[in-house]
């Protein structure tokens, strides 16, 4: 039961992140991949993904 619930939560979590557009699709994909590794989750891995320059930052760097 637990695995099914956890998978369902992850699906809905990713779906909501995409809908809310607070993070872009690449970030959502990277987050999902991080969960899928099955490794122990570490805050620094999330910090790295969420701190990566995103599309709008490209204009800033001009």
């Amino acid at each position, binding site marked *: *039961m*637990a695995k099914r*619930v*956890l998978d*369902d*939560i992850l699906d*809905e*979590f990713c779906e*909501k*992140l995409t809908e*809310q557009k*607070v*993070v872009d699709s690449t*970030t959502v994909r990277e*987050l999902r991949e991080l969960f899928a590794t099955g490794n*122990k*989750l*570490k*805050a*620094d891995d*999330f*910090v790295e993904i*969420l*701190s990566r*320059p*995103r599309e709008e*930052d490209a204009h*800033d*760097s001009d």
Partner: protein
Amino acid sequence: MIQIETVSIRELRGIRELTIEPRRENFIVSGPNGSGKSGVVDAIQFALTGEISRLSGKGTGGLSVLRHGPHVDRRDDPAAAEVSLGLHLPDSGKKAVLTRNVKTAKTFHLEPDDQDVRARIEEVAAHPELSLSRREIIKFILVEAGQRSKEIQALLKLEEIGATRGVLKTTANKLSRNHAEAQRAASSAEDALRRHLDAADLTREAILAAVNPRRRRLGLPELEPADLFAALDSGVSAGSSADVFNRDSALRDVEALESTSLDLSGLGAEEAARIGQDLGSLDHDRALFAAIRRRSFVERGLELVEGERCPLCDMEWDDEEHLKAHLRAKLAKAEEAESIQERLLRNGAVLEDHAQRLVDLIRPIQVLAKRDGSAGFSDGLAAWIRDLAEFAAQLSDVESIASIRERLQKGWASPPANLQEDLAALRRTIQAKPDQSATVAAQTFLTLAQDRLVACETARRAQRRALAAAEAGRAVYNTYCEVGDGYLGALYKEVEDTFGSYYRELNKEDEGEFRAKLEPDEGGLDLEVAFYDKGMFPPGAYHSEGHQDGMGVCLYLSLMRRLLGAKFTFAVLDDVVMSVDQGHRKKFCRLLRTHFPDTQFIITTHDRVWAKQMHTEGLVGSKGEVAFHSWSVQAGPIVEQAKEVWEQIEVEIGREDISGAAGRLRRHVEYVASELADSLGASLRYRGDLAYDLGDLFSAVVGRHGELLGLASVAAESWKDAAAQERVATVKKARSESLATHRGESWIVNKAIHWNEWATFTAEEFRAVVAAFRAVLDQLRCVNPQCGSWFYVTPRAGDPDSLRCRCSAVSINLRRR
């Protein structure tokens, strides 16, 4: 999952050798405290999981299955300790025997080795909650919300939700701190640019108003607002900006540091004082300080847990989850410590910000001082920058903050000696420099303006990224919480409904309207229950301890139902039923019988009356009990109704261990006689110390049995029931014969002879004693091998109606017409 047919235990914990046969039915292990019941629970748990919870977890440091699992006399021989379980898979009908040895506890032998059965055993091993002890049931009820949430999520195997939530919260906090740092860096860069431009703000107009007059002076085209992203110094001859010196800008930088340094003691003074107060309160409560120190230590350890070895003390645990639970429990204890810790860190963060901003002011002055400052001033400033950077780094954890307490009291800024004088001298040196030509002044102004504008834009961009990351971190955390809480909320709703209905069944008379509310809140799980019609309250508020225990059992059962559904085929309730008070036992039996008809419960209890009630209520069958008594280190528990007692006595006589046999016989007969005295309602002369010996008990029991048979004769005669009269006559005749044998050995219950005298008997003499007792006791129990229970009268109080056994093969009427 599985059900248990047989349990065979050898040299494990307090048991030397024992076989019981639950036969896939509910089964009771009864006996007074200290009689060895828990050994059976340990054995089942060990066989299924390779672990014994009593030897792991909180407060069990230094204990291990390998060293402390075997019987104490076999502690150096773990291979001697072994448990075998005869298993049955209810859905497939498969059977197998699982054997696990303490020496090789990580693996087990299965006969026949069937992959399906093996998979089920692995599944059971992943559910330690299938074995529930009395001390565990209350952990769902009387704990704070955060801990309850952890316990229940752990039970439902959903602790990963809480762990992920924790990691995402840490992520959000780290991103928030990164943003604060980026914000400060951007603000410092803006200050530096504003100072250089000598502008009130940094609007495009203000920047151009400072830049364009210099460009005009150099004959360069003026910049439009739209050109602001182009270089402010475009057209100015290139040179190394490190060598560029603009007198007016330099003076403004020096004045900025001078002005700040005038009141260094006031900078962050309030926060430093608050830190001092909090550290002072810790002086009065060293335990609190220890809790804080431990807390940050344990927090760090918890983050680093990976596997079964504790990252803090290097001790090996049975598994990672036990270790984590242990560390979490330590954290939960330090709530007060947590609030002080938060305050210290919050005030520390403000001081860190002040220190970093000060460093940003010092840097340009250190460059100027290298060229124009007094001897050693530049080096002094460089050392100050390093010192402030180190100071700032010490404000991120409580222990480091405590280590700089003295500095915080004295004034944390610690400027170099003669700072004011050196700054004034530097200012005078710069002022004394010959006026720069208007052209050079304009050129250096534009070059430095461009440098600082680029630095400012870079810092602002980093700040925007950090802000976006911090917002994303918060959104990711909130979204996960929202989704997780939604799922858990639905799940808890289901559990709360079932929990409420079970509890109502138990307490129909007085709490028929009982309701419960399980509500997730900020990672915690609030539990409120209705107290009559007075409202909803925490369970510990008004309910009695007995009711709280009942809630614990009901919540456990509803969680197991939700967790395993039809797979909830087996559970061990170790003394848990004692939580159910006398008035609700009947309903408890009915609850288990009706809601869990396919679940095999192995139940231990030290309350013989409760055990009998479970028989009477049909929760367990006539053969569904093993009763222990008189545990000893050498012999382990004595099994009351088992023929093994007599076999064991004979074995001891055979090897001429009359002393061992005598001890076993005395303990057994004393125990059985006390049980029979109770169940037959024998009269004993009251003793204040309740230390009745065999002489008191045995005579009273034999006498009471005779009385009851007398009543039976009279009753049968009054009903003119010839068949009954004949049955009673047969029983009386057999009784007389056995007593005749016994009387031949009557000296054995003569108090003048101490029981220890038996130890001096020859084997043959003692065999006669044993046979005499056995013959009498056999008159007092059912001869049906499937029953074998001791006789009892009903009702327990008042005049007896009948003399019975559990299977009803014996049911002798005692009431006259």
